[in-house]
């Protein structure tokens, strides 16, 4: 995460969006680019085709429930700026931090945004703003340990810093 403020067009999803939707199990073996074409295929087949780099996701409760496969990688591959949801599954939250996908828990975000609104999220302050409606929400800022991983760009980047061939 080279910046801490993200601004983008909202794609809105509801409660209990499973990693089986975000990264279907049958796509295990392909390249990241191939896998990402199946993102949300079961519930919104047009998503992976139409989403643009810099767009953001707004989710409901328990976003990313289900399998531990690091489904956030598909969002990174598609260029999604960040994910803001009412709540996340623990596995999705941690795996997204590990792959370098910024995300915030934010109460009220589901009702505050319509599909297509412009969202601005500041990860240093936790402020989430709907630039279309003017509404402002306060998210829980991430713990420092998670911010450090995101600032580095994910766990692999951190390990490269420490172990990388010189």
């Amino acid at each position, binding site marked *: 995460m080279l910046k801490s403020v993200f601004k983008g067009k909202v794609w809105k999803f509801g409660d209990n969006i499973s990693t089986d939707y975000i990264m279907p199990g*049958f796509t295990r073996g392909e390249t990241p680019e191939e896998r990402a074409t199946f993102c949300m295929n079961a519930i919104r087949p047009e998503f992976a085709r139409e989403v643009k780099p810099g767009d953001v996701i707004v989710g409901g409760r328990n976003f990313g429930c289900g399998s531990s496969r690091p489904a956030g990688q598909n969002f990174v591959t598609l260029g999604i700026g960040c994910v803001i949801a009412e709540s996340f599954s623990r596995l999705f939250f941690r795996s997204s931090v590990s792959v370098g996908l910024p995300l915030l828990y934010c109460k009220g975000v589901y009702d505050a945004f319509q599909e297509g609104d412009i969202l601005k999220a500041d990860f240093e302050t936790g402020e989430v703003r709907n630039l279309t409606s003017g509404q402002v929400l306060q998210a829980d800022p991430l713990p420092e340990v998670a911010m450090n991983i995101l600032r580095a760009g994910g766990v692999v980047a951190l390990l490269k810093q420490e172990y990388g061939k010189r």
Partner: protein
Amino acid sequence: MGMTMAEKILASKSGLSEIRPGQYVTAKIDLLMAGDSTAQIYQVFKEIGIDKVWDPSKVISLTDHDIPAPTAEAAERDVLRRKFVQEFGIKYWYDIGRGGICHQVLPEKGHVLPGSLILGCDSHTTSYGAFNAAATGTQYPEAYWIAAKGELWFRVPETIRFEILGELPPRIMGKDVILKIAGDYGTEVAAYKSAEFVGPAVEKMSLSDRWAIANMGVEIGAKFALFEADEKTLNFLKGRTREPFTPVKSDPDASYEQIYQLDVSDLPPQVACPHHVGNVRPVSEIGEVPVDQAFIGSCTGGRLADLAAAAEILKGKKVHPRVRLIVSPASMEVYKEALSAGILETLVEADAMVCGPTCGPCPGHHLGILAAGERCISASNRNFKGRMGNPAAEVYLASPATVAASAVAGVITDPRNM
């Protein structure tokens, strides 16, 4: 102030005498179940130039989601796993024919010890909580860190407690209990929390039933799904490990975010309807639902007791002509025991197709993928749209007994009526 099981384990592994929910700690890991992610760990370690794992006896490697390899790509990943084991001197590796599904194999091989902290590259790692281990899922970006360093950051979770009262009636299984909890309290009730399962019904139920509950702990959001260790736990471990271990119990004055009580004495069989694990109803309330496929297997429903429950129902009967029944014992140990007990013969005589151990059908990888419009009753753990194949298929989740009864009847059926 006392501590819960999860707090005690995290405190001891972090070198602290006391910790509280919400605190961030760095803890030493007792075991990394690297499983299928072994392939990715190998690739990334080679790419970065990390030439050893923190402890080759504590990174357990196996292959389970696609075995035996259904595609050339899957075969290539198995090659990477074997290279990792060879080049990094991994002590425990369970290849095809020696292991099976990780969450069955690790306890069977004596790797899961009470009081330990285990991370596993699969969401159902919460299974090991049945053996009093604080165990939770991770995945390969984070697993690289663990494999290299043997430690990880944690947020100390709040603990909730499920007091399960009464006693499981005949043909009602651990699976019915966890589905009931998911249905009544929702699939977020334990989100990012440690869930403890205690009470008279837990004491009386089999280790296999506890294993199924802990396994699906993650389906109610749990970080850990912990049971106390008792005689049943210790008897299971006898002969499987020589390592010392220290079981933990919650202190009487430990603090809980919430305590739930559930009496299972009259619990009817439960079914999770499409397309969500929390969409649960008693079998009597779902009406006449014909099925095309029935599946008994996975880390949730492929244990010996699960196959035995199915065999009891299928003995002398035939699977309904319109239905195919697929059975996959969760491990080679289960397979061998079911073979020598005559269980597999009973199942095969009933027209079941018995496969080897694999995760295969449950996440829609291979051996029983569903076509559009098909309906499956499954002893596995998830029924999200597209989970077992085509997004236009439907998956109903139930106990192995209910799956077996439904396979015979051709419609979803109460196993107590058979």
